């Protein structure tokens, strides 16, 4: 007998006491919890996102669409970034004012090459206000998972209010499980020393989020 069949047979024997239950999955239990917490206007939801991002040490900036390229230029210049990773379909005008050398997200790049790049700029798939989370789904304006991981500085642009949802349940509805997802809530951190949170371990130690309106 294969281990697969062995384990499945053990599971069935273990459940011998459980009465046969044909209740369909969607009626099997009660989802008595809320779809979102509290009632907020669209503006208030965006404000809450900004507040919660900042609470976990992300640097939050807000601007109109036409100011975006200047803001990105300023953020990269302030950081002194000489090179910036660019996902394949990042809107070209976002970086039109930026001087830093563009490094394109290519399958052939080695992790060492990525490690030498100063910054990365991406869009996102959705942002969650209640938790201060941005979610990347590897779309063409976000690139492969590793480009937002290896460089030490990540700038993520969120189109508000379209890409902002209130809650985790609402975010999951918008996301496609078939895509590889990365949920990011603030810069890399750890609670491993005396159960106290410290920012800055393996992921980008600086996370900047630009909330852009009117895009």
């Amino acid at each position: 007998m294969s281990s697969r069949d062995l384990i499945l047979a053990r599971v069935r024997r273990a459940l011998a006491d459980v009465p046969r239950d044909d209740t369909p999955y969607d009626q099997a239990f009660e989802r008595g919890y809320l779809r979102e917490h509290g009632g907020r206007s669209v503006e208030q939801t965006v404000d809450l996102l900004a507040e919660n991002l900042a609470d976990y040490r992300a640097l939050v900036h807000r601007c109109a669409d036409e100011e975006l390229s200047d803001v990105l230029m300023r953020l990269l210049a302030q950081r002194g970034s000489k090179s910036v990773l660019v996902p394949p379909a990042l809107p070209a005008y976002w970086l039109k004012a930026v001087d830093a050398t563009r490094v394109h997200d290519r399958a052939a790049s080695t992790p060492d090459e990525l490690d030498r790049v100063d910054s990365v700029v991406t869009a996102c798939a959705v942002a969650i206000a209640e938790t201060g989370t941005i979610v990347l789904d590897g779309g063409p304006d976000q690139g492969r998972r590793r480009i937002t991981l290896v460089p030490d500085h990540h700038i993520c642009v969120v189109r508000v209010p379209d890409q902002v949802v209130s809650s985790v349940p609402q975010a999951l509805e918008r996301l496609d499980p078939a895509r590889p997802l990365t949920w990011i809530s603030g810069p890399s951190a750890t609670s491993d020393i005396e159960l106290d949170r410290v920012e800055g371990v393996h992921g980008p130690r600086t996370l900047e989020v630009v909330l852009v309106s009117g895009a």
Partner: protein
Amino acid sequence: MSGGTFVGMPSFPKAAHEAVHNQTLRGNLRHATHTIRAKRANAVAEMSDWAELREAGKQIKDHTLRHLDWYLVQLEESVTAAGGTVHWAADADEANRIVTYLVKATGESEVVKVKSMATQEIGLNEALEAEGIHAYETDLAELIVQLGKDRPSHILVPAIHRNRGEIRDIFASEMSEWGRPAPEGLTDTPAELAEAARLHLREKFLRAKVGVSGANFMVAETGTLVVVESEGNGRMCLTLPETLISVVGIEKIVPTWQDLEVFLQTLPRSSTAERMNPYTSTWTGTTDEDGPGTFHLVLIDNGRTDTLADEVGRQALSCIRCSACLNVCPVYERAGGHAYGSVYPGPIGAILSPQLRGTASEIDASLPYASSLCGACYDVCPVAIDIPEVLVHLRERVVEGGAVTRDGAKVVLKPAKGHAAERAAMRAARWAFSHPGALRTGQRLASRTRRFHPRTLPGPGKAWSATRALPTVPAEPFRDWWQRTHGGKDEK
């Protein structure tokens, strides 16, 4: 965890006896658990629907366990359809053989690891090392444990028993043996320690070809695996290597993608008291040119189906490894994690280890007693596991013996040795309570001789009564008083 082992552990009271006399350990644990307790309470208080989320989490897990065979097959199909390969391991040895074989097939002799309870449980690092494969732990706390040749003492923060000064010393003396040495003049500020770990592990991440992980959740419907983490070491291991091997217990399934909406709200708040942890990764099989091109899922039983066979004890399989029960437990706070003799310490460990491993060893037979039954663990559990109920159930099993399932087969346990006095007392009580005449005579005799009763217990009871007053026997048994006064009516 090199060096450390749980084999041949003494019983909990013996191990805890040493731990409670270690002042540094007591101080470290007290500081850490008290820090997180207040924070968790605040994070939970933000959610007006916490009770409903908790109930939904419990019901989803309960439903999944009751249909586990069906969901396992569905998961296998969906992972396979998404480009992954599923392996099944009945026990730890088989899981270790499978992973060793998969690593060898890549031609590599080192792997990077994301923190995983399942691989700790099966002793994967030691099994790989015996075959000449080095496993590097990349979670900060696991790194501290590995470098210190120590054992984990907490589910979430395995190095919780170490304070910053001890961590500094371990880094300064041990890092050079494993790779990049700690920076000169390293101090004990947490930020500097985190920086030292970043530098030390960077080279390992960048050259790694094989990653090994566990998973917090597996979605049967979609074949998606979820890893919840903080540092980014998980993302490194899940995305940079060419081959990813995930070792996951069969109970980690949730039916649908939507079910994650419950646990992604309750787990971070229960665990690190955050609204959301810094990084959560989800992946479904393999994705072209993004992340590992080869994905293996190793599903392990290793005592889980035996646990599932116990009608009371099976709820332990609902655990999502948040560790909230450890952080509130008065026994854990004082005894520390090592005394539990298992990778699963604290209240959840006290019900999980004796079920996964059986109660044959001294440590496993003693674990159901490693509790004051105060119930704080049940109150904070985000999936409402009634830990005190299972503890009492397991105590009964240890004392009385009875039918259990081991390695898939029904066996009858003999009553444990050393509980003879307890059993005799219970038998005597049963006899007395079922013979009213004898009970009455005994009670009257006790009342009349009350002047001669000792104030302390003799023999083994002496230590107990040294700090406690024995209850005094009333001058008249309650039932006689009731008869005489008609329940107090005549005494007005």
